[in-house]
């Protein structure tokens, strides 16, 4: 993970098919590191998630998230969580989202070396990273949707440091929709799907996924 974060060209090759996504992820991470060290009561948690359906990790996607919060209680912090998500959707390739959510974090024993923690994200996943394609007489558009992500995990402090690494599992719910419409740009292309005669389709997706997260924070 650390290796990937320090070597952006590798990230580009391995994870990101285009520069736009890389740029967004890097910007978020840089902001996290820069802002992090100075503010008092500020807390940061960066996580890599495997987004999948179950224990065998079939058809997995991933998420990169950075959380910036303020502590308002000894055990609790509240902040913004953002990053990038990639969900494989059956038969339709990968869908990309830019999540932006409010997150509440609860840490059971902030001073101990090892502690249970829980988090809850409530937000929105923007779908603009998916290209709205128009091919022949078909046009389709994506729209993002509600995002919910509760997580439970353990955090382990590094030796003589406020920094910790974490391991958590959770449930991630992401909603989005796709609107297909067939329009007739010319007389030779009809305003229906040539095979099934469809004129328009509205598809609403509710993705209920299981996530496993590994992270670092302070």
């Amino acid at each position, binding site marked *: 993970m650390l290796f990937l974060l320090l070597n952006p060209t590798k990230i580009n090759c391995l994870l990101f098919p285009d520069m736009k996504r890389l740029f967004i992820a890097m910007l978020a991470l840089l902001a996290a590191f820069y802002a992090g060290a100075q503010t008092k009561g500020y807390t940061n948690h960066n996580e890599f998630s495997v987004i999948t359906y*179950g224990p065998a990790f*079939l058809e997995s996607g991933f998420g990169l998230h950075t959380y910036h919060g303020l502590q308002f209680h000894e055990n609790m912090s509240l902040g913004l969580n953002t990053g990038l998500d990639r969900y494989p959707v059956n038969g339709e390739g990968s869908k990309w989202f830019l999540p932006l959510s409010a997150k509440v974090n609860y840490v059971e024993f902030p001073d101990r070396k090892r502690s249970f923690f829980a988090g809850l994200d409530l937000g929105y996943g923007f779908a603009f990273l998916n290209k709205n394609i128009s091919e022949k007489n078909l046009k389709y558009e994506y729209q993002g949707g509600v995002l919910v992500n509760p997580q439970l995990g353990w955090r382990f402090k590094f030796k003589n440091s406020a920094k910790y690494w974490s391991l958590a599992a959770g449930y991630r719910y992401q909603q989005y929709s796709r609107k297909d419409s067939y329009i007739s740009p010319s007389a030779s292309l009809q305003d*229906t799907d040539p095979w099934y005669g469809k004129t328009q389709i509205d598809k609403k997706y509710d993705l*209920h*996924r299981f996530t496993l997260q590994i992270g670092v924070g302070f």
Partner: protein
Amino acid sequence: MKRIWLILLGCIALSSCDKIESKGMYLASVPIFETMEGIRAKANPVSSPAPIVKTGKIYIYQDYLFINEPGKGIHIFNNGDPSKPQAMAFLSIPGNVDLAVLDGKLYADSYTDLLTFDLQNPASPQLLTRNKDVFKMLLQMDNFNNRPDRIITGYRDSLVSYSQKDRYSPYDRKELDYNQVNAGSGQGASMARFTIANKHLYAVDQTTLHLFNVQNASKPAYVKDIKIGPGIETIFPFKNSLFIGSNTGMVIYDITTASAPVELSRYAHIRACDPVVVNEKYAFVTLRAGVVCGGQQNLLEVIDIQDLTKPMLKNTFTLENPYGLALSDQTLYVCDGKSGLKSFDASDVSQIGNKLLETHKELMSMDVIAGPKSLIVVGQDGVHQYDYSNKAKLKALSVISVTKSN
């Protein structure tokens, strides 16, 4: 604490899935159903001449030319002068595909019914009799059905809305999706093919020969059904024999006793569509390969039928895509699909395929009748008539053209 943790984790892992809800609209050809009663009640046959949209079977009786519009009815022309056929009337008969005329009476099918019209005034034929539910086998939606209470009289385009909910998880047992796609083609129509011989009307559909006694011409009496086998397509009477072409062969019946046909022989050939014509000694059969008929070869077969109980293949010639054929004296006319209309010298049957007299390549033709005054050819663009007094050189007389529907 740890236990709760594990339970929660397990619950999440097991309930993960995608739920996809689709809502949409699609254009579909929706069948229009009617009952036979409804069709009968609405019957109002005679109307003024109508444009021909599609040509089906053609029939000549005296100076009149009958052109079937498949599924719709019959166009009646005065063909006294073949160079100037005059449209007289359109007989609207839903579900009609074939017709035959005897002694001034016109017999036509209408889905399951057999109708008899009086042709005393051919501009206004009068319905005399309706034999109900005599043709039970109907071709509908590319399937056969025998439900006269639900007849597909047509299709209309409708915008249909649908909604569908899917659940997906890679851990679910995969089940096969059956996507039922109905090709919305094929108007409902009876499959009947008619012919009249020895005062009897013989109508064949896909599997069965229906026999009617028309000694009382205005009131056909149903005699019986004879099961012949699948894939029947054509029927051709010659003297006291009936030649029935199916897509696997030709069946010859003796009809000396018209009400009790006796099967004489079966001549089997490769699977193909096969119109038949016959003279004293030989039967000429064209085999056409295609999607509907199956088969690989396009052939003209000459079959020796001097002994009707033992038909024997005499010669085979290759054609391009043969449909109907007609025989006039020593000339054989073959509609060879896209290759046009061909005429052959048939005086020597062993050489017939090599003795091409003429090719009218521009004439994409399906069927041909050698009439008393003209050679009538059904082409894609209409019904053509030719003066064929000089066998080697056809002379165009007239065209009844088809109105293209969009």
